[in-house]
């Protein structure tokens, strides 16, 4: 039993009673700690015991505690702060390969408002979530990494599978601006061929698998800038071909003729930089993944701006 487990449990119990009782997380944790570490009571039993103590103190019945206990039921798009205990109703959109043994399942869940990453810890010993399944998840905790929010399922989380289906919302964004940079790692690249790897090779080497025979791919890591904010945009092979008119085969021919793969990115820079684009697609971390891209070539209306310029 680690301290953080106890703390997680204590925080969950505290949340259930915080609007009724003058208690702190530390109070709850101390009670749990006494039971678990001093009396060697199993954690489940300790949680039950402490919860009952507080139910008595608050003069409440057990069924007054809603499943996870008084959490706000939120839409995933409304998650905007870390370390909040919430309930969500979501569909499992995607399950990813867990990179660590500590993680039982990781992937993407969504509701009408959009999608969010979820992590389920191995030590929480929760039932398996199935791709496409719709679940009510009570008592999950939010987390943030580099501005990107996720939810974490923990030992106190209650998973209830629902019969109904759920329409997962489109969380794509639209950004406009001048393409001011095409970053290194763009153009004709090679990826690691190892199963489930796909890392981009640096000088023929994969950071995980060493020297490998790479597989060619096309992509652009670009920067859109509207003079107020910058957005990093990734174009996959299909989007890159649509944007540049250069196919993967043509890019390989160009590289072969020049005996150099960098000619492909150079050509793309000449064709694309300094032009204005509107890109739509889902966000992933700090990137927007370009599903759709349109060059803004139409004439612009100077009239409205001129009226404003004269008026101030």
């Amino acid at each position, binding site marked *: 039993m680690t301290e953080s487990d106890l703390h997680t449990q204590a925080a969950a119990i505290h949340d259930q009673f915080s609007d009724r009782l003058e208690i702190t997380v530390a109070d709850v944790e101390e009670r749990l700690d006494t039971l678990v570490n001093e009396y060697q009571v199993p954690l489940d039993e300790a949680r039950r015991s402490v919860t009952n103590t507080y139910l008595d103190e608050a003069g409440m019945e057990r069924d007054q505690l809603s499943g996870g206990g008084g959490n706000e039921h939120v839409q995933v798009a409304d998650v905007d702060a870390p370390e909040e205990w919430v309930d969500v109703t979501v569909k499992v959109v995607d399950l990813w390969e867990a990179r660590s043994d500590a993680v039982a399942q990781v992937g993407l869940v969504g509701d009408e408002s959009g999608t969010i990453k979820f992590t389920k810890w191995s030590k929480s010993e929760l039932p398996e979530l199935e791709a496409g399944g719709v679940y009510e998840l009570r008592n999950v905790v939010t987390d*943030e990494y*580099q*501005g990107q929010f996720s939810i974490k399922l923990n030992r106190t989380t209650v998973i209830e599978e629902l019969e109904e289906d759920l329409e997962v919302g489109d969380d794509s964004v639209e950004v406009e601006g*001048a393409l*001011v*940079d095409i970053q290194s790692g763009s153009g004709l690249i090679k990826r690691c061929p190892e199963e489930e790897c796909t890392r981009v090779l640096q000088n023929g080497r994969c950071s995980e698998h060493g020297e490998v025979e790479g597989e060619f791919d096309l992509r652009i890591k670009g*920067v859109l*800038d*509207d*003079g*107020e*904010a*910058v957005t*990093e945009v990734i174009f996959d092979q299909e989007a890159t071909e649509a944007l540049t008119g250069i196919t993967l085969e043509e890019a390989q021919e160009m590289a072969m003729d020049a005996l150099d793969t960098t000619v492909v990115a*150079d050509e793309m*820079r*000449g064709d*694309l*930089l*300094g*032009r*204005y684009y509107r890109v739509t697609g889902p966000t992933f*971390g*700090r990137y927007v993944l370009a599903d759709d891209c349109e060059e*803004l*070539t*139409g*004439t*612009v*209306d*100077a*009239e409205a*701006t*001129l*009226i*404003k*310029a*004269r*008026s*101030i």
Partner: protein
Amino acid sequence: MSSAPTREVARRVFAREFNDATYTFKESDDERAPVYVLLPTGERANRVFVVGTLTETEDVGEDAEYWQGRVVDPNGDTFFMYAGQYQPDAAAMLRDLEPPAYVAVVGKPRTYETDEGEVNVSIRPESITEVTEAVRDRWVVETAERTLDRIEAFDAGEGGADPAAAPNEYAAMAAERYDLPVENYRRAAVDALESLEGEGTEADPAPADD
């Protein structure tokens, strides 16, 4: 979304204002900290994006190639840019391009003090690409809008009697460092927009709005 490492925004500025931005500063003592020029309308700039007419290129280097490019905005004001061995792509573009041509330039502002004590402001280009007139027109409207945004924020910052009410740090810095009325730059925006109105709108005569 402020926790991700941030890339500097490319400011939109007409040449009249850019060439007046002679004051530079850093936000920290770190040797590698970015250098900003202070725009007179009250904004810091570590990168700019300009689109205009390349009118002249010249190799002004003595030992090695060092290319100067002149890019003119619709007001006839000139952005100067210099590219040498450390900007090989931009230098190659300046070598190869035939003026006149519309070009889009992304680059870093640089200042240089002459022997006479005058400060010249120029661009060290990161990229130069040839673009169409439509891209230039879009840039003009966008640059006018960003300039007006800065002027409005500047005026709002000046208007408040309570200095804590409108903490427009760079407007305050500009007011302190420069003796340059922002009205100059509002005029630059109006002039640039009028030049667009004049050229391809014969179908609908400009309504008299003021």
